[in-house]
């Protein structure tokens, strides 16, 4: 186990070093949600009573957090394709290092990056007048890291399977739109017509968004929190399994 952790750390440190050489990307990644908060948040303020909430930012930041977790992580695979093309993956695969460590080390980088971005977003939320309990924020960020990790692992696995940006980009676009529209990231699904809310029940991310929103609102009861956490953990486990299988596959 300690060998495995050591190998994960070597891969992680290398990835982090490359990212830190270009820290701009971390901030560019956080820029989009920040824009949403600054430019879209104020529009919610006068409407917030109709959405069944009291504080616009306590309502809105959780959605942005999950959006950041999902969409930022979806792009993790693009860097991997570049690395594969330069032979980095193959060079790593020919060492005795555990092949799962090659995935986990990269995932650690994605999670760290996501954590930094999440903290920026939460700090910004407070500055704009968000009112959320500390434990709620902790749980919200934890769920974000789980769902973000799931997306990053899927993205890495998918990238290593197709090995082409030209395939990645349209697929990510195709997945992103329904996720954005059906998970209540921008507006709660409860204000929509019955059929739309019914449809969103089948969108796992919707439960995660609701759970993070409840946690930020200090609302700890009910099944929403349970289902949101269950989906986060479940999707995370599933994605790790897929990613590990892809990295271990003999001819990847």
């Amino acid at each position: 186990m300690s060998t495995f952790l050591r190998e994960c750390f070597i891969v992680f440190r290398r990835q982090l070093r490359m990212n830190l050489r270009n820290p701009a990307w971390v901030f560019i990644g956080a820029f989009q949600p920040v824009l949403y908060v600054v430019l879209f948040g104020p529009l919610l303020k006068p409407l917030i009573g109709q959405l069944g909430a009291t504080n616009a930012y306590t309502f809105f930041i959780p959605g942005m957090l999950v959006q950041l977790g999902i969409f930022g992580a979806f792009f993790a695979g693009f860097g991997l394709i570049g690395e594969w093309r330069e032979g980095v993956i193959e060079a790593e695969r020919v060492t005795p290092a555990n092949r799962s460590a090659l995935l986990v080390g990269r995932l650690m980088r994605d999670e760290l990056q996501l954590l930094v971005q999440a903290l920026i977003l939460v700090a910004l939320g407070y500055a704009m007048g968000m009112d959320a309990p500390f434990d709620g924020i902790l749980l919200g960020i934890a769920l974000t890291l789980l769902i973000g990790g799931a997306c990053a692992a899927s993205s890495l696995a998918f990238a290593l399977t197709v090995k082409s940006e030209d395939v990645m980009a349209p697929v990510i676009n195709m997945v992103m739109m329904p996720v954005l529209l059906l998970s209540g990231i921008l507006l709660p699904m409860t204000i929509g017509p019955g059929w739309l809310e019914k449809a969103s029940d089948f969108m796992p991310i919707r439960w995660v968004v609701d759970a993070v929103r409840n946690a930020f609102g200090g609302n700890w009861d009910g099944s929403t929190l349970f289902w949101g956490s269950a989906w986060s953990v479940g999707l995370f486990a599933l994605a790790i399994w897929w990613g590990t299988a892809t990295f271990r596959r003999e001819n990847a």
Partner: protein
Amino acid sequence: MIHARGLAQTFETKQGRTTTQVRAVDGVDLDIEEGEVVGFLGPNGAGKTTTLRMLTTLLRPTEGTATVAGYDVVTQSADVRRSIGYVSQTGGISSYARAGEEVMDHGMLYGRTKAQVEKRGKELFEELQLDGLWDRQSKTMSGGQKRRLDIAMGLIHDPTLVFLDEPTTGLDPQARANLWTHISDLRERRGATVFLTTHYLDEADSLSDRIIIIDKGQIVASDTSDNLKSAVSGDLVDLEVAGAEHVAEAAKRLGSLGDGSSEVEVNGNRVSGRVRRAGRAVPGLLRDLDANGIALDAIEVHRPTLDDVFLTLTGRSLRDAEASTETPTPEGAPQ
């Protein structure tokens, strides 16, 4: 060091609805002893890289078995990986990373400590004439420097068996010659067994003790360069006859040399044919021609090249084989 029996790899390529099975490697037997430098020669798409990827545990053989450095490539793959160094066609250094850090990280994945890999890395940089490039990004390096850096990375854990996949492809002649000396050093200085693939004849010729030729996934020859060449029936004697009226007579006399079985080609004033031990036969031929009043403008004698060997073995020249092989892109094989 390497023993393979019936090694085979079948890829499935899909085009529309039809799935075709491509047998990229079709039953390869290999026996390579410790300390040998073996050149694995063949046209593009012959199965060189696929064979190499199976031997280096990057690809699971669909059939057959192989032991590398005493370990089975399928059941003991981690032990194989620990014992070998592999320098792929593409290298394995990110162009934005710093050279020294990449090499150190790679070494640490073999379980070496930071201090060990730093010391070894710096020694290797010196040996491979990379001094002063430790902190450079590889994108700022020349092709030759980058290739030597790839080799430094492959040697960081002191493997006793080194696989080099097309080590000099794309390099200018000077950088190639330089790299050749470093490849020869692998054995001279560290006693390593070297298995290198190439589609350059001169490279296989000048570096290897033994040449294994692969064509269409099958081994067609395995011998020393000299033995392979002497299997080609003789040296090529090429005469340029002065005066068109003597061409037929010159062709007849050239054809009657040796055992008289070789075919003579006539092309304008040029007459050429294969002659065994041309060094002994040619003086007699010249006297003979001279005595019969046949003057020559030029005479050239060519020792057989590996290209001739390939032609003799497969009926195609290496260059034609390259042109005619439409390489299907097997999934996962870098091109």
